[in-house]
């Protein structure tokens, strides 16, 4: 019998540091996925064409939008992976409970989101350099000052974190019942197909607009933070009800 009194914060901290070391390879996949997104972005993330008289005008737009989108997918997958059995079994090498394990996971996902969000936003500059030197493109930048750049980094981190929270919930549901492996994609594609048949705006489009079309910074922050908390609380509640070593 141990005479040491276990402190919850210390346990979470130990588990978090362990998870950071154990899951370091997930950052390799982040780099590759961002490089892949950069490769896809080299042709431009959008273009406009116009003609008038003898003049044909083609405008190509560059931005790190695709890199951010790919980072979101990475965060979603990483969050699912850390809920799988081999990863959860690692927790039993510590004096821990379900709650401390989940808290360490949340902290790990937050760290991953910070690294993912920052590198995704910085990738824009790499895109500029590649386009300039490789394709000899004449670039005109619409980017503004540090304040907006900081806003971009903060919002990207939060969006990536929110997506990872959703991934964590999906992963947790799958651990409860394998039926969710089929149920989640069916729900995803089902809403698209169903709303297309009844000629309504797809449910996913409404969700997308709810978050990404919110012009107020405060409201957007509230929506993202509350949604992330909701997903994590739901996941923790579900995991707490699970039997030991299931």
């Amino acid at each position, binding site marked *: 019998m141990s005479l040491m009194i276990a402190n919850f914060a210390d346990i979470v901290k130990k588990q978090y540091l362990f998870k950071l070391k154990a899951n370091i390879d997930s950052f390799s996949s982040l780099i590759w996925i*961002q490089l892949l997104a950069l490769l896809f972005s080299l042709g431009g993330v959008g273009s406009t064409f116009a003609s008038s*008289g003898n003049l044909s005008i083609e405008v190509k737009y560059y*931005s790190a939008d695709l890199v951010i989108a790919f980072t979101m997918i990475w965060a979603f997958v990483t969050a699912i992976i850390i809920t799988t059995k081999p990863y959860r079994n690692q927790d039993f090498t510590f004096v821990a409970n379900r709650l401390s394990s989940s808290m360490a996971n949340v902290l790990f996902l937050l760290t991953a989101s910070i690294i993912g969000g920052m590198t995704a936003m*910085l990738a824009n500059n790499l895109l*500029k350099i590649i386009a300039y030197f490789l394709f000899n493109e*004449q670039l*005109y930048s619409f980017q503004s000052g*540090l304040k907006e750049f900081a806003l971009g980094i903060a919002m990207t981190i939060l969006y990536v974190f929110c997506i990872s929270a959703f991934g964590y919930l999906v992963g947790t549901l799958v651990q409860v019942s394998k039926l969710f492996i089929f149920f989640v994609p069916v729900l995803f594609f089902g809403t698209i197909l169903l709303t297309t048949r009844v000629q309504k705006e797809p449910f996913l489009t409404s969700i997308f607009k709810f978050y990404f079309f919110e012009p107020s910074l405060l409201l957007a922050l509230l929506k993202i933070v509350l949604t992330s908390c909701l997903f994590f609380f739901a996941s923790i509640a579900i995991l707490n009800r699970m039997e030991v070593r299931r």
Partner: protein
Amino acid sequence: MSSIIPILLVALAIAFLSINKRKKFVTVKITHWLLVIYVGVLLFSMAAAPFVADGKLHARETVSEKELSQADNQLHQALRRGKIEDIDERYLVTQKNFDNYQGKTLEIDTIYGDVPELYVERKQVDDGKIEVFCYASELTIDSIDFTDMAGEPLSYVLENNILTIKLPKEREVNVSIVKNEFTINQFTEAREKGSHIIVNSPYLYIRIPKNLELIEGTEMSAIFVGE
């Protein structure tokens, strides 16, 4: 300023790593190296990017749609009143003179898709000189002035008493614009702005000798100044 930040970040990272090296916080793996190299490249790009793109943008003038519309109105009014001396020289794209014109009549026609607005001024003298001025034809992309890349909008051929307005050779303008990410645009004015390409149609202003009879071609309609 934005170039200093990456240098500071690199210095901080080196300081952090050197402290942790002593504590043996981590066993260095390939992933660590990958991360360090990748972040290093990103920070280097951040420092170098302003010299690549922003410098060129600063050389270009930005004009709002309101300013463009006002300038077009002023130009239109000046042409209508025949006060071309009052027009800013930058709006004059080309001027071509046909000296020693002997014909009694002049037909103006076009083989141009969009018919340009044509203003005709009858001079007080019979000097046998036809002067053709082409104005405007501004090109702006997302509020940046690219008029210099648009080239000449029209060309003219005077044969058998017919002045034919033609289109010069096809011209391509390719522009690459780096824009902010959607996570920034969501909260800025850029949200409402889509991509805007504005090409103003050119105006033609022709000065003809006093007694020259002008015949309008099938597509053309001339506005006589001061009559």
